[in-house]
C-alpha cells in the first residue's frame, strides 16, 4: 500500500483540474487551501475506475478540512467549516 504523503495538520491545496468524466473532487473545493484532518486509508480513485472500467491501485485518501470563508469568501459564516474526503492525487 502506498505510504501517505501527508500527515494530520499539513496544509494542502487542491488541484484545479476539470476532468471530462467522473471525479470525487467537488468543484466547490478545487484550487482551495485546507488542512489534513485525518489520514483515512487507501482505495482506488473512483475517477480512474469509472474511466477505465476496472479498479486501479490503492491511493491514500484523507479527510480535508476547509474553513467556509476559504471556500465562499469573507461574507461566509465565520464559525463554520467543512470536511470532505479527497484522494492524494487531488492534492498538491
Amino acid at each position, binding site marked *: 500500500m502506498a505510504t501517505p504523503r501527508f500527515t494530520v495538520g499539513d496544509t494542502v491545496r487542491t488541484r484545479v483540474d476539470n476532468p471530462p468524466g467522473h471525479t470525487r473532487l467537488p468543484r*466547490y473545493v478545487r484550487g482551495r487551501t485546507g488542512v489534513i484532518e485525518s489520514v*483515512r*486509508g487507501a482505495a482506488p480513485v*473512483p475517477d480512474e475506475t469509472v474511466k477505465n472500467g476496472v479498479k486501479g491501485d490503492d491511493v491514500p485518501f484523507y479527510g480535508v478540512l476547509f474553513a*467556509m470563508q476559504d471556500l*465562499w469568501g469573507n461574507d461566509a459564516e465565520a*464559525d*463554520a467549516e*467543512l470536511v470532505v*474526503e479527497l484522494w492524494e492525487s487531488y492534492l498538491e
Partner: protein
Amino acid sequence: MSSHSYAAAPQSHNHDKDATRVALTARTAALEAALVAGGVLQSEQVDELVETYAEKLGPRHGAAMVARAWVDPTFRQRLEEDATSIIRDLGYDLEGSQHRDLPFATLRAVFNTPEVHNVIVCTLCSCYPLFVLGPQPRWYKSPEYRSRMVIEPTQVLKEFGTSVPAGKTIRVWDSNAETRYLVIPERPKGTEAMNEDQLRALVTRDSMIGVTVLPDVV
C-alpha cells in the same frame, strides 16, 4: 405495492411538490406491476426489501449506538476509533445475506461537543449511513439541502429549528467518498437518572444527521 412512506420532512424543507410525488408513486407502481406480470419480480421481494431498509436498517440501530456511547466510556472510545468494526460485529454489513449488495462503506462517528456541532450531507448524490439510520429522508436528497448545507449551514440549521450558539463551530461532513458519518448528539441535560433503554428512546434520526439537537429533559 408497499404502503411504506418516508417520515414527513420539516415544513420549510418540504420543497418537493405533491404532484411530483404522486406521479413518481404511480410510475413506480406501474413499473412494479409490469415486472411482476412479466415474472421478473415478486411483490413479496419488494416488500421485503422495503422492510429491510425501513425496519431492519432503521434508525433504532443508530439510536442504540448513541445511547450506549452515552453510558459506556469503553464503547464510546471504540466508536470514536473504529465505528466500522462495531457495525461488522453487529452484523449490519449484511455479508452473506441476500441484501449484501446494499451500500456499505466505512462508518465514522462524529461527536457533538460543547464546542462543535456536526452535520452530514452528500453533495455528490445522497450518501448516507443506511445501515444505522435506515432510508434517507426525502429532503436529504434535495438539491436545496445538498447545495446549501455546504454554503450556509447556520442558516439551513435555523430552518430546521436549530439555533447553534455564536462561537460554536459547525462542522459539515460532505460524505462524497468512502466514509459514511453518524452524528453522536450531546446527551441532553436532565437524563442523568435514565437507563440505556430510556435514553435510546430520546434519540431521533434527525439528531443523528445533525440537523437538530436533542432537547434537555426537564
